């Protein structure tokens, strides 16, 4: 077992612990019943996805500044893991919404902006696949990643201004009982670790793929300085 496999195993084990805590330790919600347990993983996955997209944003900015391949690989890895986590968020949210709201989907601000988030970064992954690998793909990806990150709060704001029915942020409002809060924090920590491990493994895969395609760090061109004119 190498280092990466050990980390992966640890992350999966942590998620299993979180699952056990969600089902065995956390109390059942008085109004929503067992369905409420979806909340722990749903919100954690959403936060982890935002973290991944922040990596894409930062990677894009750093790449545009100094063409660092490391930043670009981080962005690629973050986008892929972020899309997976957003899928988890959407699917779990829909499973929760069916019994509670009576419908899988509604055009609420958070739902709309999360769907747009998913579409933008799924588009990012497609662009990366279709563009010529190397500088071109990296540049295009950086711009798409930055615009995607800006667009999400804008979409969210514009739809909120229109109509919203998603439950408000209950964690920061101190409305959660202690046991639920503890469960949520544990699940979130485990999910963030899992996301970080996945991004790291994907980063290694991207590095290997770059090596296979002979994409190397740009060679720094050192120009000889003009000789000082002798007075």
């Amino acid at each position: 077992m190498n280092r990466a496999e050990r980390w992966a195993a640890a992350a999966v084990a942590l998620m299993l612990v979180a699952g056990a805590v969600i089902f065995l330790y956390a109390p059942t919600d008085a109004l929503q019943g067992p369905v409420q347990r979806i909340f722990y993983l749903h919100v954690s996955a959403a936060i982890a996805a935002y973290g991944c997209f922040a990596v894409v944003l930062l990677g894009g900015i750093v790449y545009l500044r100094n063409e660092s391949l490391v930043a670009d690989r981080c962005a690629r890895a973050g986008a892929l893991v972020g899309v997976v986590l957003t899928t988890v968020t959407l699917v779990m949210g829909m499973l929760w919404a069916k019994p509670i709201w009576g419908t899988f989907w509604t055009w609420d601000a958070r739902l709309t902006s999360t769907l747009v988030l998913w579409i933008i970064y799924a588009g990012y992954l497609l662009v990366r696949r279709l563009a010529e690998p190397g500088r071109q793909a990296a540049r295009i990806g950086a711009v798409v990643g930055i615009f995607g990150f800006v667009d999400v709060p804008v979409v969210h704001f514009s739809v909120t201004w229109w109509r919203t029915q998603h439950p408000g942020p209950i964690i920061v409002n101190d409305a959660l009982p202690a046991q639920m809060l503890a469960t949520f924090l544990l699940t979130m920590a485990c999910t963030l670790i899992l996301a970080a491990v996945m991004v790291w493994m994907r980063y290694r895969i991207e590095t290997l793929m770059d090596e296979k395609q002979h994409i190397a760090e740009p060679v720094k061109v050192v120009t000889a300085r003009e000789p000082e004119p002798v007075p």
Partner: protein
Amino acid sequence: MNPFRVALAVARKDLRSEWRTREMVPALAQFVVLALLIGNFGFQIDSRNALTIAPGILWMALVFAGLVAFGRTFAAEREQASLDAMLMTPASPVAIFAGKALAASVLLVACEAVLLPALTLFFGTPLSGEVVAAVLLATVGMAALGVMFAAIVARVRARELLLPLLTLPLWIPFIVAGGQAVQSAMGLPGSYQEAIGLLIDFDILFVVLTSLAARFVLDE
């Protein structure tokens, strides 16, 4: 080199070549009229439900006409490989980008000049200055984003596939606010002032952002 004059020169060149070929505007005009036709048969529109459905058809037609128009922005440059020549001149890429965006939005405005009266003619919706203002304001931001992504996908395989995929999600804010503005201008509930304010905010935000990004998109 004065960037404003460069932008105007680029826009003038694009519009002149459009004027000589007369390809885009007639095609777009036919396209939007066809979209209204499809809307009519898809929805069974009559005088009672026209007001609730017409704004939706308006934005559908406009968005897809926009995709067609912006997708063609760099077609001539690609076919003749003239973009590289333009970029080799001392003109700044931002000015070239602004010129392309200006020309593309003029084409879209020409298409709106067909779409809005046709909407009134076929569906009997009011054609007021408020509706025109909302559509024109949305055009500014949509053109900035559309031309930027057109420049991005110009060098990529399967660009026809990618352009809508990248552009549509970023247009959503304009469609939310513009849709609301047109709806309230046509007499449905909602605040027109707020929607227009939001459109102006989005215009400023995305025009600034795309101008900042233009350097990285065009400079190759």
